[in-house]
């Protein structure tokens, strides 16, 4: 039996950043990752580091994450290709542009500093955007980063601060004996801890269910692809109001695009669907005409956890003291993840998060299941 203060299940960006902040606060941490840290959703997502477009309830946490991202190299030791390129959300119709205006109005005061661009302003500032866009909303300090590098680096940084990071170490049994948790792994390790963090991403619901609070979680598999390196054209990460193809260009010149859904190969692996890939190849040129004739060299997908309201569960279990949940980020956990790790650390170290988490309580699903 290994005694620690906190056992964390899941080495994605949420679990790994919690491991990092807890270790820095002097807590003894064991992080258990079934595969490799940052090898699932946290590592294979689009790489958007974006506040714009989030539900207002997420903006305080997202804003907090924004501060953490500004300290990234000091925190994890690499820049992770993070750049504050700006995030440009495109509107393809007057209604969509109105929706962007409404969002800009309602998010006033959260520090997003959104700039609304009409057709001419959009053309003047971002001439590479296709004529299909009639306007846009720009969040100048949003940006993008390389998730393949950033997410594993949180785990590495946690390790440097003394956290035990166990990879290829699936949890086989979890129980609470009235005083503390006992966690056993398939590799034969056993841990005791007063705190347990359920940060297992798309696979979190099984642990919640074990403590009698099942949630209606489903898995999503975004279709992603990347081009060969192209001349640098895109000076902002982009998305489309109402959904559609999102795209960014990395410093090396490759354009990363996402849109549509893939499918699960098995419990742990996913692929982008044929239809989604074809649709990106066909439609992306409307939004980003410079892509015409460029070659897509690779496609991929991942497994993301979705709850029906597309909001995460963050905070205390309602059935088991000492158990904290943080999952269900609905494909939008990369930017906010480090702030969630920090909020969980505050709960453990000082009793409560300084950022409100009420909107994300797991109890919101209890009433639904009762009704």
């Amino acid at each position, binding site marked *: 039996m290994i005694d620690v203060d906190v056992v964390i299940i899941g080495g994605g960006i949420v679990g790994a950043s919690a491991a990092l902040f807890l270790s820095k606060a002097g807590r003894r941490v064991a992080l258990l990752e079934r595969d*490799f840290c940052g*090898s699932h959703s946290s*590592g294979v997502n689009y790489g958007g580091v974006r506040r714009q477009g989030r539900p207002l309830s997420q903006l305080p946490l997202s804003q907090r994450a924004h501060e953490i991202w500004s300290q990234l190299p000091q925190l994890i030791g690499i820049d992770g290709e993070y750049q504050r390129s700006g995030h440009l959300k495109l509107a393809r119709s007057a209604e969509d542009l109105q929706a962007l205006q409404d969002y800009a109005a309602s998010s006033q005061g959260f520090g997003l500093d959104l700039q609304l661009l009409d057709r001419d302003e959009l053309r003047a500032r971002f001439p590479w955007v296709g004529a299909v866009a009639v306007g846009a909303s720009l969040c100048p300090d949003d940006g993008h980063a390389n998730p*393949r*590098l950033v997410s*594993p680096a949180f785990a*590495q940084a946690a390790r440097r601060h003394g956290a035990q990071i166990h990879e290829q170490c699936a949890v086989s049994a979890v129980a609470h004996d009235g005083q503390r948790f006992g966690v056993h792994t398939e590799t034969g390790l056993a841990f005791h801890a007063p705190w347990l963090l359920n940060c297992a991403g798309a696979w979190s619901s099984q642990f919640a269910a074990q403590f009698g609070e099942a949630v209606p979680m489903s898995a999503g598999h975004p279709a992603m692809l990347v*081009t*060969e390196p192209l001349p640098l054209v895109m000076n902002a990460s982009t998305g489309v109001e109402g959904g559609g193809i999102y795209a960014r260009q990395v410093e090396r010149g490759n354009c990363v695009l996402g849109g549509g859904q893939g*499918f699960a*190969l098995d419990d742990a692996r996913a*692929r*982008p*669907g*044929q239809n989604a*890939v*074809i649709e990106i*190849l*066909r439609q*992306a*040129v409307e939004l980003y005409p410079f*892509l*015409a*004739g*460029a*070659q*897509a*060299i*690779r*496609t*991929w997908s991942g497994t993301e956890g979705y709850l029906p309201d597309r909001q995460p569960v963050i905070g205390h279990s309602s059935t088991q003291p000492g158990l904290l949940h943080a999952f269900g980020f609905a494909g939008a956990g990369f930017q906010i993840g480090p702030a969630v790790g920090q909020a969980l650390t505050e709960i453990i170290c000082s009793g409560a998060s300084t950022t409100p988490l009420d909107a994300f309580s797991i109890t919101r699903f209890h009433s639904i299941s009762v009704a």
Partner: protein
Amino acid sequence: MKPVAIIGAGPAGIRAAQTLVAHGVYPVLLDEAARGGGQIYRRQPANFKRSPAKLYGFEAHKASALHQTLDELREQLDYRPDTLVWNAEAGLLDTLHEGRADRLEYASMIVATGATDRILPVPGWTLPGVYSLGAAQIALKFQGCAIGERVVFAGSGPLLYLVAYQYAKAGADVVAVLDSSPFSAQARALPGLLAQPVTLAKGLYYRAWLTVHGVSVHQGASLSRIDGERRVQSLKWRNAKGEQALDCDAVAFAHGLRSETQLADLLGCEFAWSALNRAWLPLRDHAGRSSVPGVYLAGDGAGIMGADAAEMAGERAALALLEDIGYLIDPQRCTELEQSLKRIGHFRQGLERAFAFPEDWAADAADNLMICRCEEVSVGDIRQVVGEGHWEINRVKAHCRVGMGRCQGRMCGAAAAEIIARESGRPVASVGRLRAQAPIKPVPFGLEVEP
């Protein structure tokens, strides 16, 4: 009714097609090339008029027979040349033909995707004028041109002597052949090689011919580096006696072949490590059945056995497919094919001994040697990631981009695995398998889609 699809019109694919047609099946034959024949019997463009003997040497009759078979089958199958299969999912193949995307629904499939050269980089390998052995051969066979005027051939494998011979025959100045395997290994391999005396005799003939014609053939000779300002100007090689230099304007090199397994991977076939091929290969039974029902594997794409074996394996896989969908087949023929394939298998083991893999390549590779030319990843970059604790090849790829570029690891994957294995102190069999991701080859934005 959904058709039977054959992917690849090389020796395996054409014989598979012929067998299906002979039993009354109308298959779809998809091939990336403009004309059938595969790589080894690559057919020159229609308006080129060189004789088969000139193009294929000893193998002329086999090449002609295969080409003729495809010509005769044209009306009895749905032959689609210039067609790239770039993805497979749920009983559908994604294809690309002249910029148009289409889908093919299939009932069952024979995967005959062939092989490419196995590349173990040396300093200077990305200079203009450096080719793989296979590419050098294609330049000669398909384009009718040599890769240079003073050419050095290096590496190992049967292709080494064959291509050098073909170049010399065609009038190129073959400066030297540098065979990395020592003579002692080839002597030890003799018992296995005697399983195919005719093939062995041909190999010996090529070598003898080169020697008689004044080409210096060195064994136990490894390429150290290739030098040149804008293109190849010279190279250095070494053997037990030390390092030597040669002036040349082109180099062709490779260490044997590697199977093109991405399609089998996307189809969900189970893989296993093959020590003989030093590669992960899709599992197949004696007849060519993969682990996925309805998917059959034949030819070098499922394990390197050469063109003769590919023809037999194509036929055998087609017979298995026919049997599985209820056709009566000739069991005698199946037995014959399997026995012949077994004999070639023994020969293949002899070949692997004769052209032994250069085990010390990874240890000798300098940090600044480029491994992944698409993403410009060096040996040192890979070593650094391994030094950070990563050893699984897909994780190493995620961290340093090796295998992430245009070729998707087809060129650099084998070498990267060797470096990771050496650096992490693991056998190369246990650093994992680079997972295939669609597209198998790049596909363009703005493609048109068949309605």
